[in-house]
């Protein structure tokens, strides 16, 4: 699972108010090259929760994304490359996603998070 996916997900247990973002407990993180596409990054940026991406990247061993992003930075190759790396090249292979409200752990195994709720959580 890449951090683009992490940025979209939240805990949807019935009654949970603040299920976003999942806290990542990494066991195995891989770095896998992905095609660098500045247009995709500029297109996707306004749809992301930036703070959650910065924190997730730091947890996964890539700290240093700036807290604020300006229009100029979205034209800057150095910034876009670090954004690209955090969003699409850090892969959570093994570990878990932890609901910030309930502490419920959703396991990530072989890169696939299991977000299916149990019968008593729906």
């Amino acid at each position, binding site marked *: *699972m*890449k951090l*683009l*996916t992490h940025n*979209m*997900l*939240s*805990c*949807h247990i*019935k009654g949970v108010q603040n*299920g*976003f*973002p999942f806290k990542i407990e990494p066991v195995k993180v891989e770095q*896998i090259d*992905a*095609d660098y*596409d500045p*247009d*995709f990054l500029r*297109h*996707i940026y306004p*749809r992301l*929760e930036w703070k959650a991406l910065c924190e997730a990247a730091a947890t996964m061993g890539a700290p240093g994304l700036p807290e604020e992003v300006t229009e100029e930075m979205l034209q800057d190759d150095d910034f876009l490359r670090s954004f690209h790396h955090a969003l*699409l090249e850090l*892969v959570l292979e093994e570990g878990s996603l932890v609901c910030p409200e309930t502490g*419920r*752990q959703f*396991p990530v*195994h*072989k*890169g*696939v*998070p*299991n*977000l*299916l*709720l*149990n*019968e*008593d959580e*729906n």
Partner: protein
Amino acid sequence: MVKVVVQNNCGIQRSLAIAAAQVEGIAHQVAERSILLKGFLELWGEGETWEELEASINAFSEEVKQPWLQPSLSMKVVIDGWGRIINKQEQSEYHERLEFIPFQNPVKLTDPDIVFRLIIANCYSNHGMPDTVPKRMYFGREVGVGNRRVISQYALPKRVYLGPTSMDTEMAFVMCNQAKVRKGNFVFDPFAGTGSILVAAAHFGAVTLGADIDIRVLRDGKKDTSGRVADNWANFKTYGLQRPAGLIRADAHRPPFRETLHEILDAVVCDPPYGVRAGGRKSQSKPDLQVRNRATHITSTAPYSMGECLRDLLDISARLLRVGGRLVYFLPAALEVYKEEEVPRHPALRLIANSEQVLTTRYSRRLITMEKVLSYDREVAAAFHEEQGDPRMAIDSVPSIVYEPRQYVDGKLVVSEKPANRPKYRSKLC
């Protein structure tokens, strides 16, 4: 004028269509992206008989023909039989018959400068399928060839990991074309399974995301004969495609996306589970259940009716697509109960296309293409669903219609409201 020659995957159906493409370059570009298109011809002549064809070619503008009939350009003439196979002997006979055209060109069979095509349409039988091409001959110069090579490049039999419901390669590419998937898009398949639609989307350069409720299909895959693991990741790797941004085990009925997530996707392309080959499942609520060990607990699921599944699909698409983004999915249709007004609707989505693919004499499926035309409004959507009421559709009884013997009362077909109550096959792992 350019003649558009379309080849349909269930034989040849309404296969010849005439279109005007003024600029050869555009025809070439269109052909390059097309899957169902055989190619574009600059049409030099046509006719039902050889005499008519010859007269038609002779009457065609010398000004257009002459530049292509020069000794400096190598050529080959391809004889295409439509509706039946043309054997070697007939082929050479037809080549000879075309000698009235003053070709000066040297013949070169591999990679010639020009390809001429003689199409002989003769569909005397289409195995009971509707509509065939009328008997006729066409001759012209090829100006673009459809991109049918992707079908062999991604052919299922050669794929590392596949399952019984893997979308066939040709259709997966057609679906991505309907969804206008292109480089830099973000494409989601909520019923990803073995990922064949995502493979096609990734081929076009999209970033992909897949979900499925069946974790064994999505994540675990299987071992091949030499003990290597064959799974979704392996498919992307062997094709040299971008690994999906995520494959997540989730329930389409309870999508695990944050409330604030909107307009992030360019396309949703999927083949929802319908129960003819793989029945839909969703999670179920049992508030009083005591889960002793969350790590080992196996969650039970409940059946997911098609009407409900499609309502969820349209709603999540309406929310997550950008305006102008497309939803493309297959809707099963039993010929006897299909009603156009039952094709699900949504206030934010507009129906673009509804194309039938005949599968058997009793069962077909329809490729539905919708486009997001308005931004998503939760209240409007909720009110619309409220007004629509029970989402159950007549085709929720598709499995029984397809598999059960037909019942007639007074010569009229009786369609049972509910699927027949049969014991379900369950695998050992369930």
